[in-house]
């Protein structure tokens, strides 16, 4: 298996929601960059209203 194929396989597994269980065992608090983290990040980024952000920034400046 080449590096490209390994990377492709790793991405496929992550996208399918398979967790790094053995790696997670090494840490007490678990993995920070989990699939859930990225789901939350996506929701946060894609649902934010740019107008509200600008208004907030203007309020902070005042």
């Amino acid at each position: 298996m080449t590096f490209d194929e390994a990377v492709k396989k790793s991405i496929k597994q992550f996208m399918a929601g398979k967790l790094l269980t053995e790696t997670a065992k090494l840490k007490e608090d678990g993995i920070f960059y989990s699939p859930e983290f990225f789901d939350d990040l996506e929701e946060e980024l894609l649902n934010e209203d740019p107008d509200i952000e600008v208004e907030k920034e203007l309020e902070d400046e005042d």
Partner: protein
Amino acid sequence: MKIDAPIPGANYLADTRNYAWHRPPDIMDYDEAVGYMIDHIDEPEKKELIFAMLGIDAHITTIVTTLLLQVVSRGKIGIDLAILIAGPLARYIEIAAKDVGIDYELGIENKDRVAITPTLLKLSLGMALDVDEEDVQNAVQDTVQEAATESLMGMPTEQAGVASAEEQSAMLGGMTEEEPEDEL
């Protein structure tokens, strides 16, 4: 017997500090590695490059492979950890592409699978297509007959028959068999 292998003990003589990946990597923690790569991607120059690559229809897997090879060659992350963090990186680039509104392709889709089309679905369900079977049979017979009579190597028709001896002689350039002369 000649063996294509290093001389025993060569590893004790070689300078293993020549390349970055010969030394222990700088980052060995999963979260630290992902965080480092996310910061690396967020640099304006890197982001421009990634979006430009997506613009020329490069797959996200190709971009991730390129980025990981760079950090592995610099000795920042080990090759095993690089493979482990490929998924989160691809996901992060996917989110960034969605955020900016760039079309992307992950590159993990199976291209060998047969695409499901309406015709394939009809055939698999045993549903008759809108073509009359008699028409198909007639068309096939006509094609077979034409192929048999009109082609160069086709079977001769009854009307054409076999050419006469004179006709064959004319086709061969009017040559007739000559009797061998006596050699003396």
